[in-house]
């Protein structure tokens, strides 16, 4: 059969195609994806001649999971609709969470402000101007109690974008849950806890890489024993993509980081099958629709192979790449912001067709400020339209077998693996980050992308073509300066009311464990329960571990 397809293809090229090409050339001499993969004019069955259905695709919920992480996928239940949200104080963010839950959101995703993420209390000089700005300010357990007030932690799963201070915020969730009468073993949620990509792209590191990796693996061990339904890490390509890398690089760098975490955990004495099923991932959904769908499928298959072949995982669950997706923040334009609703819809659709487990859709006004309540609702509604109206959720992995999608899935997997081999050759992801290789690759891609926009090789609607005269958006969410003052006052009150002897004791105990080889999460939990602050706990660890300085 293939022979006749090949003959027929040749005939089509010679006759039908060439007749048109000779009169009307195509728009471009060649068409490339963001990963510089040259797209063929036409994909046919010939492109999948070496593909073996059972080996390369298989069935949903079975190795190599190309077709999906679960056997029923969205026929069982939709992805979790989880809008990343947090601003100002715990009081205001708690109101926004209740608003989102009332509007049909099915999980929470907490955005913390930068001081919380970098381990400074709201009254620290470096926190000035940042308190409550890019997320909610959390100084002590008191704030966390307010944040989750009236939200049942045994029913609503909570994802937290927190890395260097992940142990502290996780401990706070456990402590709040206990106060709600919820036991740690039923708690569901995720901490990002992916510090490697902080050095590579996002920037909220505190400690040097080696010490950070110890905290990460301590968290793995703690979660395995104490909060077994919690995802102990969300290995994230999202931010590297936002910083400018391509789809292939996103897969490659994320999985290379994943390999580094698995190796670190094994070195720390954990059995691979004891923690691997609690690893989760986080990807971007960017503009190039087909490439993005293929990217998710390729990542799932490649991770399954890595876990089985490289790490000899015995359990199937250890091989499943479960992931959260957020639409690409850097694709949102300041110009003609209504167009962003359309971009987000396509990106979200790609994530769903790629089999995401949870999804955040960006709001149209995020090139201006944090999103307003109204624009967040439109973003959530976009997911609901995909889920309830579009029908794409009703059949599993519906684009499988598309000649183009399968060819790109193969190609992305192959090119990502080439990168991973290269990173292995450098001594792994930690070394590749320390040497600046990954940062340089990301910066090079970002610069190339910008050049393409400025030379109009890449058109961004409303930015470098189809521009209009317009008034900038003014109806945006603003964080008032009183927020910082209010937060500082609350912190001072907590410090006055708590038993400072207990705090001193808890911090001394933490220091002791950090200097030794014990698990740091346990004394962190004791410290948050006596209202030691994020800054105090971080400072204690800074004394022992030192601080990382960017090269």
């Amino acid at each position, binding site marked *: 059969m293939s022979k006749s397809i090949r003959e027929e293809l040749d005939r089509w090229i010679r006759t039908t195609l060439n007749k048109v090409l000779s009169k009307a050339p195509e728009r471009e001499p060649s068409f490339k994806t963001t990963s510089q993969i040259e797209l063929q004019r036409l994909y046919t069955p010939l492109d999948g001649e070496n593909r073996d259905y059972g080996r390369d695709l298989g069935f949903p919920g079975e190795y190599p999971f190309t077709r999906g992480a679960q056997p029923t996928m969205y026929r069982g239940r939709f992805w979790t609709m989880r809008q990343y949200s947090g601003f100002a104080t715990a009081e205001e963010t708690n109101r926004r969470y209740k608003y989102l839950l009332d509007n049909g959101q099915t999980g929470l995703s907490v955005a913390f402000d930068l001081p919380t993420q970098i381990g400074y209390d709201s009254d620290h000089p470096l926190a000035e101007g*940042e308190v409550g700005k890019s997320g909610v300010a959390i100084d002590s357990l008191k704030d966390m109690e307010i944040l989750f007030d009236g939200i049942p932690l045994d029913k609503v799963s909570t994802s937290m974008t927190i890395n260097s201070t992940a142990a502290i915020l996780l401990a706070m969730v456990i402590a709040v849950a206990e106060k709600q009468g919820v036991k740690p073993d039923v708690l569901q949620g995720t901490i990002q806890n992916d510090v490697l990509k902080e050095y590579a792209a996002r920037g909220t590191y505190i400690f040097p890489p080696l010490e950070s990796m110890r905290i990460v693996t301590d968290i793995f061990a703690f979660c395995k024993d104490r909060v077994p339904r919690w995802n102990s890490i969300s290995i994230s390509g999202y931010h590297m993509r936002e910083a400018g890398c391509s789809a292939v690089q996103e897969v490659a760098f994320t999985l290379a980081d994943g390999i580094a975490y698995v190796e670190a955990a094994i070195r720390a004495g954990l059995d691979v099958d004891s923690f691997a099923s609690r690893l989760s991932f986080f990807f971007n959904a960017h503009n190039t629709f087909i490439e993005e769908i293929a990217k998710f499928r390729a990542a799932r298959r490649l991770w399954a192979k890595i876990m089985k072949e490289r790490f000899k995982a015995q359990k199937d669950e250890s091989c499943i790449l479960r992931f959260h997706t957020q639409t690409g923040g850097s694709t949102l334009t300041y110009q003609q912001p209504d167009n962003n609703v359309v971009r987000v819809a396509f990106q979200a659709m790609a994530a769903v067709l790629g089999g995401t487990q949870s999804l955040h859709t960006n709001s149209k006004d995020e090139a201006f400020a944090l999103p307003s309540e109204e624009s967040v609702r439109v973003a959530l509604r976009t997911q609901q339209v995909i889920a309830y109206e579009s029908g794409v959720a009703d059949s599993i992995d519906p684009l499988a077998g598309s000649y183009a999608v399968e060819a790109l899935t193969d190609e992305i997997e192959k090119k990502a693996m080439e990168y991973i081999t290269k990173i292995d050759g450098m001594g792994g992801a930690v070394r590749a980050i320390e040497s600046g290789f990954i940062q340089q690759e990301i*910066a090079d891609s970002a610069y190339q992308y910008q050049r393409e926009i*400025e030379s109009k090789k890449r058109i961004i609607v409303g930015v470098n073509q189809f521009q209009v005269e317009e008034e900038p958006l003014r109806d945006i969410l603003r964080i008032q300066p009183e927020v910082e003052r209010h937060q500082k006052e609350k912190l001072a009150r907590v410090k006055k009311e708590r038993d400072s002897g207990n705090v001193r004791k808890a911090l001394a105990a933490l220091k002791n464990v950090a200097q030794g080889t014990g698990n740091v999460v346990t004394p962190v939990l004791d410290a948050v329960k006596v209202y030691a602050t994020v800054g105090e706990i971080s400072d204690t660890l800074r004394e022992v571990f030192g601080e990382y300085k960017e090269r």
Partner: protein
Amino acid sequence: MGGKMARKIRVLIAKPGLDGHDRGAKVIARALRDAGMEVIYTGIRQTPEQIANAAIQEGVDIVGLSSLSGAHITLFPRVAEILKQKGAGDIHIFGGGIIPVDDIPVLKNAGIREIFQPGTSTEDIITYIRENVRAHT
């Protein structure tokens, strides 16, 4: 042409505050370098004091500040203030990032001469710098 060669324009690109979003800062630093300017990029997490000191020590003509975290309203004016205190008020300052339009007049009053919004081409920024800074010879 007849006299001494014009010195290259010296630029400091800086990231004040805790914000780690440095894609824009890095892209602009590289574009300015490609346009023949001498560019120093501070890296992330710089205090206004560190930025002002670097600007003076490096003898730059112009400073570009980038912030996407919302802290611009506190941090940008402070850079201008410290430069003025140190007698370097002639160093031109511009900024960019996620900056609500209503903040622009406030920043301009505080000595930030221009704010570039998302979507600005590097070409426009290069032109702006050339028009506004005559490199000291």
